[in-house]
């Protein structure tokens, strides 16, 4: 069964460092998402991406964040200068249609980011 894969599974970084989280969505999917889950809190929407551009983003997704689909398979989330409060589990998701509208989103296993 096809699945969304994410790397790394866990990254520890120093405050102020740049971090790139990588995702390989399901191959025939067209819509891509990043969500995050701070420990013990709810899953929060960050950004959605379609046709090589951001379609929606939340207030959390400020200028420190960026997304890119550099080739036909990877979808990355970059945090330019990490802060302590960026520590969270980051989930990538994809859907074939506009998943938030009708179909379900398929999630990866997550990348745990720890900022020291």
């Amino acid at each position: 069964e096809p699945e969304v894969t994410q790397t790394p599974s866990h990254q520890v970084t120093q405050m102020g460092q740049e971090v790139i989280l990588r995702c390989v969505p399901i191959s025939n999917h067209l819509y891509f998402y990043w969500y995050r889950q701070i420990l013990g809190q709810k899953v929060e929407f960050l950004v959605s991406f379609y046709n090589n551009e951001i379609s929606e983003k939340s207030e959390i997704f400020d200028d420190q964040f960026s997304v890119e689909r550099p080739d036909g398979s990877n979808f990355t989330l970059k945090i330019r200068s990490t802060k302590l409060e960026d520590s969270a589990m980051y989930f990538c998701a994809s859907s074939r249609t506009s998943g938030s509208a009708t179909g379900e989103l398929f999630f990866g296993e997550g990348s745990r980011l720890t900022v020291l």
Partner: protein
Amino acid sequence: AQSVAQPEDQVNVAEGNPLTVKCTYSVSGNPYLFWYVQYPNRGLQFLLKYITGDNLVKGSYGFEAEFNKSQTSFHLKKPSALVSDSALYFCAVRDNGGNTPLVFGKGTRLSVIA
């Protein structure tokens, strides 16, 4: 703006007993409703969804959920709980009237005791 409330942080149930995990929602238009499950150190797995039609929807692993428009609820149910059902359950909603993202509740931890 849409929102989801899961009023219980934790639900405990004995194996073999029926379980219910509660969810209420708020949207301006018609809701699209989803349940996801998260096992330890894993991602979110889709369980079931309500878009339109029959108010009782059936999903994976024997779970079902009932859409109740008057009570704005979408409670997750299972007739007979298994220990392996122990996990974190998330309800999610989006408003089909707009191009808004899926909004999740804070999650309910289900513990099924043998």
